[in-house]
């Protein structure tokens, strides 16, 4: 399971590192802050962690739920509780963690400057603005000062508000804290702020009972959609902008996916039992409820049919083949360079170093030096290197974003595979893409296949989305079972893990696999494999603006290769250097 900065701080501040979900009303309360990004969401981790440590989130949730049953308006009560909770946590943790008030101030500045919670748009929100400027006067800006002028004549209300929030620091338990928030609810909000609906948008469909904002469709209202081969993949930038969106597939559409995948990607080569076992291990956290398909692809007969699908498959393969033929010379050179890079790295690791010394293994032929030379150096000191074996896993991103460079990706992966076959390093090549709730891992060749199997890579085609983290975790299972000393994973990707399509919509469903959440998860899976002794290298095939993501995911272990010719020059040298560092 991956963790992001907010969850990391939640676990640390709560002093309980067991992975757990936020209870329902806590989730509703903190959701807007967690989604706001920047320091606001990072600080939210501190607030929730502190809340858990001081009161227990489950306890807080229990008392909030009781008030929900008593027909309290949760849209009002939850933000008030958040104000009280933040204040108590900040005050009580300040001794132990003096950096917390500084983080709070930075979060307040972001809230006031960018207004991600739209506080300026409702009079209830103005109270939050008042509170933030009161607590952190340095964060007040022109806009907040203008809004606060509206409170002229209501100073006694503001005074009461401040007093009641400050009293929450005396709350000994969750019940007392929620009751303090309830007091604010009664004394201030229901008394002075009649519900303001002037900016509310009426939902098209009936909302589920406890939604914070009316943006989600009720599950039964989602339009059924048919699987579509040209399922679009959104760009990361767009994905992060629209992180609350995403597409949800209906039950019918989800039910149709296995059959569709079997027809278009091929049948599974894993038994059902093995598949269940793998899914239980890797489909957790953000991948909860997802499925995997390990396939060897479609049989040759599927390429010979007269159907449009067969035509598309043939076109893909032919384009990849053409690319190989057009770059035959540079491909040969590339294979040689990759072979050389691996050989250099492995030879340097394997060859014993022998040098002359005054101790070690006696060299008979040097005995004539005795009595003739001052320092005869009669011995060989043999420094035996690591005689270890290597296995490589090549993972190719087969998502729609690679479609523009499909043939180049196929060619580069082929070069690596052919080079590894040439120097007899066992390796497996798989591509991965995500379709609906299934992540498809298409195996082109297995670890111990013959070199002829390398050409299967030319059947590579790019379509749909990609869950890089899940693919890495799934591929890692077989790799970790191998007996070789050094395990290397080489991932060909564009640094854009992105899966806009969610499975079933249900309460407590994991976060959507887009934007930061997807990158964090991929980062985490890479680190997890590294912790288990696997060396993970990224081969970056994307655009300049995604380079930063790639660097984030693979650290310094990534290479950028634009053309097959590059292997002959700097890329080959860089690869050698990267391998030597392993």
């Amino acid at each position, binding site marked *: 399971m991956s*963790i992001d*900065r907010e969850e*990391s*701080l939640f*676990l*640390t*501040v709560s*002093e309980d*590192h067991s992975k757990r979900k936020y209870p329902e009303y806590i989730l509703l309360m903190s959701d807007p802050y967690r989604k706001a990004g920047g320091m606001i969401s*990072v600080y939210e*981790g*501190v607030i929730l962690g502190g809340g858990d440590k001081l009161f227990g989130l489950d306890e807080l949730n229990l008392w909030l739920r009781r008030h929900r049953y008593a027909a309290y308006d949760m849209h009002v009560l939850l933000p008030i509780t958040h104000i009280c909770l933040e204040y108590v946590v900040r005050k009580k*943790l300040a001794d*132990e*963690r*003096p*950096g*917390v008030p*500084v*983080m709070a101030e930075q979060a307040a500045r972001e809230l006031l400057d960018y207004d991600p919670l739209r506080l300026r748009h409702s009079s209830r929100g103005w109270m939050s603005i008042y509170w933030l400027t009161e607590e952190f006067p340095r964060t007040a800006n022109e806009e907040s000062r203008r809004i606060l002028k509206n409170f002229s004549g209501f100073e006694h209300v503001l005074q009461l508000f401040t007093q009641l929030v400050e009293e929450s620091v005396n709350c000994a338990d969750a019940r007392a804290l929620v009751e303090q928030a309830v007091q604010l609810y009664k004394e201030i909000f229901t008394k002075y702020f009649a519900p303001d609906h002037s900016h509310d948008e009426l939902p098209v469909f009936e909302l589920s009972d406890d939604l914070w904002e009316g943006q989600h469709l009720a599950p039964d209202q989602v339009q059924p959609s048919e699987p579509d081969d040209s399922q679009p993949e959104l760009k990361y930038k767009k994905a992060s902008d629209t992180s609350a969106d995403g597409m949800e597939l209906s039950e019918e559409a989800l039910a149709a996916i296995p059959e569709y995948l079997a027809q278009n990607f091929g049948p599974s080569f894993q038994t059902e039992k093995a598949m269940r076992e793998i899914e239980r291990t890797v489909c957790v956290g953000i991948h909860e409820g997802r499925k995997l398909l390990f396939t060897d692809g479609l049989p040759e007969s599927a390429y010979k049919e007269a159907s449009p699908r067969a035509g598309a498959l043939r076109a893909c393969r032919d384009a990849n083949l053409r690319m190989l033929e057009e770059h035959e010379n540079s491909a040969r050179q590339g294979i040689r360079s990759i072979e050389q890079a691996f050989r250099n790295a492995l030879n340097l690791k394997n060859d014993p170093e022998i040098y002359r010394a*005054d*101790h*070690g*293994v*006696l060299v008979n032929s040097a005995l004539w030096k*005795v*009595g003739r030379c001052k320092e*005869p150096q*009669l*011995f060989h*000191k043999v*420094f*035996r*290197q*690591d005689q270890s074996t290597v296995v490589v896993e090549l993972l190719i991103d087969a998502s729609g974003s690679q479609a523009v460079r499909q043939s180049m990706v196929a060619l580069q992966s082929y070069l690596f595979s052919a080079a590894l076959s040439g120097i007899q390093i066992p390796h497996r090549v798989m591509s991965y893409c995500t379709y609906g709730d299934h992540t498809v891992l298409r195996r082109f060749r297995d670890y111990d296949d013959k070199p002829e199997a390398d050409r299967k890579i030319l059947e590579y085609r790019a379509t749909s989305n990609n869950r890089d983290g899940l693919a890495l975790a799934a591929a890692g299972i077989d790799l970790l079972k191998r007996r070789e000393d050094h395990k290397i994973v080489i991932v060909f990707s564009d640094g854009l893990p992105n899966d806009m399509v969610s499975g079933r919509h249900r309460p407590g469903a994991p976060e959507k696999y887009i934007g930061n959440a997807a990158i*964090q998860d991929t*980062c*985490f899976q890479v*680190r*997890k494999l*590294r*912790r288990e*002794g696997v060396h993970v290298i990224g081969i970056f095939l994307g655009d300049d603006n995604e380079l930063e993501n790639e*660097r*984030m*995911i693979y*650290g*310094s272990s990534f290479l950028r290769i634009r053309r097959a010719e590059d292997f002959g020059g700097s890329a080959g040298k860089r690869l050698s250097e990267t391998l030597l560092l392993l």
Partner: protein
Amino acid sequence: MREDLTIRLEQFKKQYAAEAAVQGRITKPPVEFIGEEILDLAVSALLQGENILLCGGKATGKNILADNLAWLFARPVYNVSFHVNTDSSTLIGTDTFVGGEVRLRNGPVAQAAQHGGFCILDEINMAKNDAVVVMHSVLDYRRLIDVPGYECIPMHPATRFIATMNYGYAGTRELNEALVSRFAVIRMPTLQPQQLHRLLQADVPNAAEEHIDRCIGLFMDLNEKAVNGEISTHPVDLRGMIAALRLMTDGMRPKDAVALNITNKCFDEYEYQLVQDVVMTRFV
């Protein structure tokens, strides 16, 4: 330490006084080991003639304990840091040419055997198992080193071997059963805040209480994160924490001191962010 152990320890020292030639190898460790129970266990085992294997995570004081034990027993120390290329010649010795003839040039194990030293086998599980097979006769009841072509080297009765290992670390291997059976194994517990406090205070005597507490808090936070697999063990760096505390005492801003010695050591951007966030909560 238990009274009976102190008495027996004194008797041991009287019985096996170290030779003058190796007095230089008996040095007082810079830091005292904190953890009486573990110390008692180790001293009892060594007094009984056992060799000990200290097994534990990063910053649990394995090497400090080993050095302290050698000092308590007043024995010369011979250190061997194991690595993947460690072989028998590194441990026992190899040929050399002295005075017109080929002789054995003793390795640290042979030297410890001759002079009744305490040989510290650091990170013993970094070496390949076949390399440490030569240690079997040294560690078991035979207590001798038999080098082909030379006389047997018998083990001095005061010689002991103290091995350390960090299980599950990158680059480590499973220890061979035959080797493990020749050691008494002590699992090193994670340092508790009070122990850390004493340790930091002893290391940086002028440090402000407030700074010590902050450093301990940060260390415990990072250690918990590493134990739970949220980050690697790189940032759990007690040496770095001590260095940071020294810089704070020297007048550097605490946040900068921690950045220099802890945060900036995370070269992985993802981990750097997580560590920096934790630091941010602890230091202004």
